[in-house]
């Protein structure tokens, strides 16, 4: 094999749009929901700094059907992120052993999802408690 002209296996350009890679692409696409939601919050923060009128405009945007549809997509993306995040977690951390037994990966996933569900409920309760 020549180092000047290494053999490159031809790669189908849309490989990421077909199974089994599609699952990977969809998981990575949840990053768009996470970053997109951060952009909405940043827009709200900037309008807050600019004063009452600008902030009202941002609140009116939040009430628009476009924003509600966008946030529904964000919510779907976030839930997919939670699900996949805790599927990955046991694969990216060192193996946990209790005594001589190795903790099954599934248990780590279940524990992570349980903590996420508890956190979801607590944040909603705090929001209800903080109502005007």
């Amino acid at each position, binding site marked *: 094999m020549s180092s000047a002209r290494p053999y490159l296996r031809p*790669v189908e*350009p849309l490989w*990421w749009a077909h199974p089994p890679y599609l699952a990977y*692409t969809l998981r*990575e*696409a*949840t*990053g*768009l929901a*996470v*970053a*997109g*939601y*951060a*952009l*909405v*919050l*940043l827009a*709200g*923060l*900037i309008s*807050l*700094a600019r004063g*009452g009128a600008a*902030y*009202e405009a941002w*609140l009116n945007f*939040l*009430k628009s059907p476009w*924003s*509600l549809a*966008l*946030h*529904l997509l*964000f*919510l779907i993306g*976030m*839930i997919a*992120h*939670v699900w996949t*995040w*805790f599927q990955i977690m046991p694969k990216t951390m060192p193996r946990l052993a209790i005594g001589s037994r190795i903790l099954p990966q599934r248990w780590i996933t279940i524990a*992570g999802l349980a*903590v*996420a569900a508890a*956190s*979801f409920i607590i*944040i*909603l309760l705090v*929001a*209800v408690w903080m*109502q*005007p």
Partner: protein
Amino acid sequence: MKRSVAPWFWLPFGAGGMLAALTGPALVLITGLMAPTGTGLAPGFLAFARASAFARHPLGKLILLGVIALFLWHGAERIYLTLRDMHVAGKSALMWMCYGTAGALTFVTAVTLLIIGF
């Protein structure tokens, strides 16, 4: 041997991913769906005076900076790796685009929080 810079981006990616996994669905539901439609929450939940008081409080500032910046860095890492694997553009161009945007917007968030004041 030249050391990879990748681990530096894994920390905010992991921190943002964990924060999003624990708070993301609830935050989107509250600020994006429940508060704007007045479903389950009072209509004035995101009112200017309340949002101002939250953004002026040091803990509120920390929450806003943490959520906005870490969510951005998490998304930037995923978008970067996916676009790189799709061969959309060169590696360094994509790194500058994704991490550069996250860095610039982190700076904007911090400056905006300072402008809002205490």
